[in-house]
């Protein structure tokens, strides 16, 4: 995330968080132009600043392009989508739905955030441990509820034996919520991040040819695979890895943007 083309001098900007903190660092020059053109309040200017950059070819050559429209909309929409996913999951007993559908919708919230704020940033925000805990923990919870009834002398998932009030209803809800919803959302998030990274041949270079038809595509791929290799300490590592393979290409890409 930290070392895309176009931000060549600003390689040390650390933006692993979901904020757009590096916007002004990235786009200093044009921000000045806009600021002189229309002197407005700082808060209002933040929105006006990015507009010219979206049309800049240089910005389009970076692996992740911020879109103010998408980011603002996702900020508003995603809490509602997440709540709706929870509703579908928890209310599966009284209306259509259940853990499978609700889990898919909750995973879709993560997709939404990833598309708006960058897949790599979302990957670092949502640690691998969380994804694995959802997927494996869900399976273990499902199996645990089933095996608990066997330990109590019944059959697999014989809910009547659970020592809780309304054992059948709440046992089923437990299976749907703790089991199926967690498994589905965890696995879908995992598949999303896996496919976003691509195929790893073992030498840290993901096979990514996306955008070969445009110039500036090759060095971007180099950067992205370096990011993918060490998602954990991308801040330092990716810069080094990017230099090894695409350091020269880096400079050319920046030139490209400048010339156009």
């Amino acid at each position, binding site marked *: 995330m930290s070392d895309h083309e176009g931000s060549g001098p600003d390689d040390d900007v650390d933006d692993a968080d979901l904020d757009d903190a590096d916007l002004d660092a990235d786009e200093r020059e044009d921000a000045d132009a806009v600021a002189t053109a229309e002197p407005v309040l700082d808060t209002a200017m933040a929105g006006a600043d990015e507009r010219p950059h979206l049309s800049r070819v240089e910005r389009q050559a970076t692996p992740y392009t911020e879109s103010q429209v998408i980011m603002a909309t996702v900020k508003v929409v995603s809490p509602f989508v997440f709540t709706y996913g929870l509703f579908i999951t928890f209310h599966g007993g009284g209306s259509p739905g259940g853990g499978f559908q609700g889990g898919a919708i909750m995973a879709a919230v993560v997709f939404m955030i990833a598309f708006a704020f960058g897949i790599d940033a979302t990957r670092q925000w949502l640690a691998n441990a969380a994804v694995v805990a959802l997927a494996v923990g869900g399976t273990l919870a499902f199996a645990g509820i089933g095996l608990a009834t066997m330990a109590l002398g019944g059959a697999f998932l014989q809910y009547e034996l659970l020592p809780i009030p309304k054992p*059948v209803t709440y046992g089923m809800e437990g299976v749907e919520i703790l089991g199926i919803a967690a498994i589905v959302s965890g696995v879908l998030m995992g598949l999303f991040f896996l496919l976003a990274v691509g195929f790893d041949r073992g030498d840290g270079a993901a096979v990514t040819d996306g955008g070969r038809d445009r110039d500036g595509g090759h060095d971007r791929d180099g950067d992205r695979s370096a990011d993918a290799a060490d998602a954990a300490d991308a801040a330092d590592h990716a810069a080094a890895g990017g230099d090894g393979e695409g350091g020269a290409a880096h400079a050319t890409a920046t030139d490209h943007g400048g010339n156009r």
Partner: protein
Amino acid sequence: MTGAAPLPAPVVAEITAIEASLFVFVVVTAIVTALARDVLAAVIVFGAYSLGMAALYTFYRAPDVAMTEAAISAGVTTILLLLTLAKTTRIDHEIAFESVNWPAAGVVGLLFTGMLLVIPEIPAVGDPDAPVWSNPDVTGYYIANTYADTGVENAVMAVLAAYRGFDTFGEAVVVLAAGIAALIVLHREVFA
């Protein structure tokens, strides 16, 4: 919920216009998905196919299936396919559609004809005498006893989580196994 009383016949007669339009929509999208030369176009049209299919399921009072189709097929699958496409190169095509492989089309046509011949034997939509409704041991039991047995109103969920809970456990493990298989195929050790 889905175990509601069968549709009265007049309703079935009234709704055929929507039904027919939806069928045309679904069939056209399916054919275009199969024949589109550009993969991205195929993915987009496949998303439209899922939209139509889910509307059809909704129409036939299968809201749980429609929800799954909408959430998984229209939402998640399209995005996963797009992510995969982002890793591929694009070949610019002058032609929009594949040329039809006529022997393959013939085989598909034969299969289609065979399925058409079976259709008259299938009970009509909402037919109260259809075996799936009139079966007192399975469907009838679920509809009659779901609430008394489990305390939930959605018979589909009761079947999934209680009556056929072990099957669902197998499905859940399959989903987990799919995630692990993706890890193995992509030579990765962590999801995120």
